[in-house]
């Protein structure tokens, strides 16, 4: 019961903070700009469609590119929102002294951590889903294209958000707010570098592969993004690419021709479960 009270309180608090409202307003602005640019770009594409030998493929290429890039933007924005909103979820309360009258109440400390986690998980999951569907909805409105496996792709994005939330949940029980934020940002931004280097390299390197695996274990967000990108590409595109020997060309820093390996997916799920548990154990023993 205490857990649900804390979760509700966390949601109320988030909406009373200017931070969330400011981020939502900026997102609205960004979506408006995106809609205008999408409209202009697609109008330009249509104007040149007559010059193409394969107009359908020409338009599909545009639809796919804008679809993947917009969902990538949703992935980045939800990651940024997760970090900004949750870096101080525990540490800021400790630093401000607001926990003294809450922790002394008849509830377990773990309920406070899991309650806060639950509150933020609900907010961020809804936020991610809204961004995802708004971007894809705008694309559908203008081009008529909607990815056939949108829901599995959204699942990957949601899991990525929960992975980051798990990281900041643990971090805020161990580190001061700013340090926790710096760690989360460095890991979130740094994670794709490993796959960038690996994909740019022309000769396969075992070392690079091992480092990428290690990075994915430390912070699986980039692996989950690549898993999401796989679902954003229609299956017949993979078929055509394979027929023409171009399948490797779809392996880019932004896209993948393979779904996320089941072991890595399982690790990401365990990551979401165990990091907050470790955070709760740490908080249980912490002097306030």
């Amino acid at each position: 019961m205490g857990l649900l009270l804390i979760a509700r309180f966390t949601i109320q608090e988030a909406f009373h903070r200017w931070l969330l409202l400011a981020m939502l307003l900026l997102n609205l602005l960004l979506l408006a700009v995106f809609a205008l640019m999408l409209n202009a770009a697609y109008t330009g594409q249509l104007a040149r469609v007559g010059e193409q030998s394969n107009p359908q493929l020409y338009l599909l290429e545009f639809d796919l590119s804008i679809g993947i890039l917009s969902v990538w933007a949703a992935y980045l924005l939800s990651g940024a929102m997760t970090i900004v909103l949750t870096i101080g979820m525990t540490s800021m309360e400790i630093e401000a002294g607001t926990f003294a009258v809450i922790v002394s109440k008849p509830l377990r400390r773990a309920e406070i951590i899991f309650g806060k986690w639950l509150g933020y998980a609900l907010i961020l999951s809804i936020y991610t889903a809204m961004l995802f569907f708004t971007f894809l909805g705008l694309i559908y409105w203008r081009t008529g294209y909607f990815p056939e496996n949108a829901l599995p792709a959204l699942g990957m994005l949601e899991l990525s958000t929960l992975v980051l939330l798990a990281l900041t949940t643990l971090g805020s029980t161990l580190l001061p707010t700013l340090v926790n934020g710096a760690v989360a940002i460095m890991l979130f931004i740094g994670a794709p570098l490993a796959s960038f280097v690996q994909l740019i390299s022309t000769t396969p390197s075992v070392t690079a592969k091992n480092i990428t695996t290690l990075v994915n274990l430390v912070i699986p967000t980039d692996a989950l993004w690549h898993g999401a990108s796989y679902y954003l590409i229609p299956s017949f595109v993979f078929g055509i690419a394979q027929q023409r020997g171009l399948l490797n060309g779809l392996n880019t820093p932004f896209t993948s021709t393979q779904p996320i390996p089941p072991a890595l997916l399982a690790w990401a799920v365990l990551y979401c479960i165990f990091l907050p548990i470790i955070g709760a154990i740490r908080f249980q023993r912490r002097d306030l």
Partner: protein
Amino acid sequence: MSSNSALDRRSGNPRPQHDENSSMSSASRLSAVEIQGLRKVYQQIVAVDDISLVTYRGEAFGFLGPNGAGKSTVVKILTGLVAPTKGTVRVLGQPISTVETRRRVGYLPEFPSFHRWLKARDFLEFHGRLYGLRGAILEKRIREVLAMVGLAGREQQKLGTFSKGMLQRIGLAQALINKPDLVILDELVSGLDPVGQRDMRELLCELKAEGTSIFLNSHLLADVEAICDRVAIINQGRILKVGAPAELFDKKKVLEVRVDHISEELLQRLNAAELALERAEDDPCRLLIEIQRDEQAADIADIVHGCGARLYTLAPRRLSLEQIFFQTIDALHQGN
């Protein structure tokens, strides 16, 4: 004072001291707080050093000491915010870690910091819910505690607009929302104006009269004297003395005597009356005279007049907290 040695033989530390009468009469009473061999070390710093203490149900107990004496650390251990390095603590007969114990305890920290976006009513509703209160009972209790702390009519005001004193009051309201059996207060009146201080003291006296146990941390003598049945003096993490305030603070009656001039004859006659006297360093016309009986005050007035001096002041002099500390420490050293 305890009949035991002033020093714990094992540790060499001052032993927890109970005034004999209180201990005897309290033998059959239930404890509110039981602290045994409590020690807290923050990295290398010893904040609390082998404290043992018992307070009783319905008793208002004062914890008096200067800043940095270890008072707040003890309170944080009592409320479960800090884990002891060593020793045991029982609150209302149970470990504070149990949810059931916490349900019966109210706590106001030294520097109450609350979520400023909350309205006063919502703040109390949240804390009431944390205690398991719901519905009409909670609504009624919110109205009651707001009235008790003098904030009736402020239900819809955001805490961010509250003054320091109002925050202290709403903090006390959340500590009382569950009708606690034990209320633990850390420097209650620090943010209050004189009227607020008086109101809070009166409120605590009412709570005590209703049977609520009070554990009051303070560095203000006036607070503990007005409210508390017994007081512990703590310094550098150790309890120096425990007893009733009157016993601790008024053991020596010292009169401040101010006259127009101090003659040799006056000093000789006061000495002849076997009065311990001391000349004040800051005022050549002022004497500090220790008396054993109240009638000696009248004798002093007679002697002053008899010597032809004019008496300007003849008033009891209260010892400052600092003087009480020094006296207590000196007494312990002499006892050794």
